[in-house]
């Protein structure tokens, strides 16, 4: 142990925009983004599994791109727009991926689900009409110990379908209005 190890480094003010809302907290620089979301902001929808980037449960969207929140420091996420599973729908108004998971039985215990929902939400923005094969590839970085993945793959395809249906109906509504 050196002297530096025993002296706690100065705390830092971290300001993050999460799901459109700005939050500031004072934390240690070593605060992982995943812990910042869960402990400091009480946004416990983001789950923490392995804490070394393998399981994908903690995946959040950083400027729309899926990233592991356990492999980022909160202090590094400043100036970026974050989206967590809480920002992708509510129980009353589910997002397309959440709706598809319900319809396709895409979850059992639910622990891994937030990471799948964020990953798939970004994927269907990029690929609005994926094949089952592409769906499998898209979720290859997320682990699920319950489902055996078949229903999750179906949910990816279904989520893309729901997203297209919703955008068509909203366009039609817009045209009528």
């Amino acid at each position, binding site marked *: 142990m*050196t002297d530096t*190890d025993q002296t706690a*480094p100065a705390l*830092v003010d971290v300001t993050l925009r999460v799901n459109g809302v700005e939050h500031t907290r004072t934390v240690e620089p070593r605060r*992982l983004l995943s812990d910042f979301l869960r402990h400091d902001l009480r946004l416990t929808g983001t789950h923490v599994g392995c804490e070394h980037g393998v399981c*994908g449960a903690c995946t959040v969207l950083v400027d729309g791109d899926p990233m592991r929140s356990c492999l980022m420091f909160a202090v590094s996420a400043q100036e970026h727009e974050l989206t967590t599973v809480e920002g992708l729908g509510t129980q009353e108004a589910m997002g397309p991926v959440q709706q598809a998971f319900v319809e396709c039985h895409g979850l059992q215990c639910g622990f891994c689900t937030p990471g799948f929902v964020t990953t798939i939400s970004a994927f269907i923005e990029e690929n609005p009409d994926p094949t089952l094969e592409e769906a499998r590839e*898209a979720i*290859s970085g997320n682990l699920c110990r319950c489902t055996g993945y078949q229903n999750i793959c179906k949910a990816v395809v279904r989520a893309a379908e729901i997203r297209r249906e919703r955008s068509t109906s909203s366009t039609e509504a817009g045209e009528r209005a």
Partner: protein
Amino acid sequence: MKPAPFVHHSPRTLDEAVAVLGDVGHDGKVLAGGQSLIPVLNMRLAQPAHLVDINRVAGLDTVTVTDTSVRVGAIVRHAQLEKHDGAYAVLPLLRQALRNVAHPAIRNRGTTVGSIAHADAAGEMPSIAVLTDAVIEAIGPRGRREIAAREFFEGPLQTLLEADEILEAVRFGRFAPGTRTAFLESARRHGDYALAGLGVAVDVEGDGPDAVVRGARAAYVSVTDIPVVLDLSEAVAGQRVSSASWDGVEELVQAGIAPEADIHASSDYRRALAVELTRRALTTAATTTEPATTTTEGHA
């Protein structure tokens, strides 16, 4: 699994970053994408007292295509380089290899230059650096220096980079006209560390099924301690791309690799795998329809 405490430095310019790392480099690390470093910190395999976070340093996030190289700045994400059409047009091997680097979520944050600085024997991009005869651009308190990728790697996780130096960019060299490339690896789960893998560059003369192979080079992943270029030319030269047999490469590959055993695969299995992957990668490269590096302009 939480990192030990550290002081976080967030320089905005390269000069500032060099100055800070010059002061703390003996007990500090550069943080770029962090996709290899943060797991190491989380597991407390390393406890640097200082992190110099270069994510906000201006000017390090660009990909530049020139007549001779593709220059990749220190904080260019794997995904950014993978999707870069200009880079793909002149050096398709980059995209071919990057698709095998971990999972998309990791590629969105991790940097190509960072993975070369990390020098993991299972990393794809160190092998691509040597295969393309890349030049490493380092900067530190003593100024800038350039290091040939073939000399840069000293051992697993060990490079010629000094503790107070930052890897500013890597210039991947473009191949001669007529070079065809491929990248292939095998892992237990797509995106996991490969059991074995390789990039190949095949020199081809002519077009169509009658084109003739003049030579081939390969650089391996997970079966050599440091990335090295293996010259397979003597076993492949003179063959027609449409009917080539690659069986002659086995001896050369066996002599050029030294895989270790671990819980995922025995050394013998990795040897057999590396030979078979070499055959398949050569076939893919020789018959590829992806853009060959035949022109020196108009792709940037």
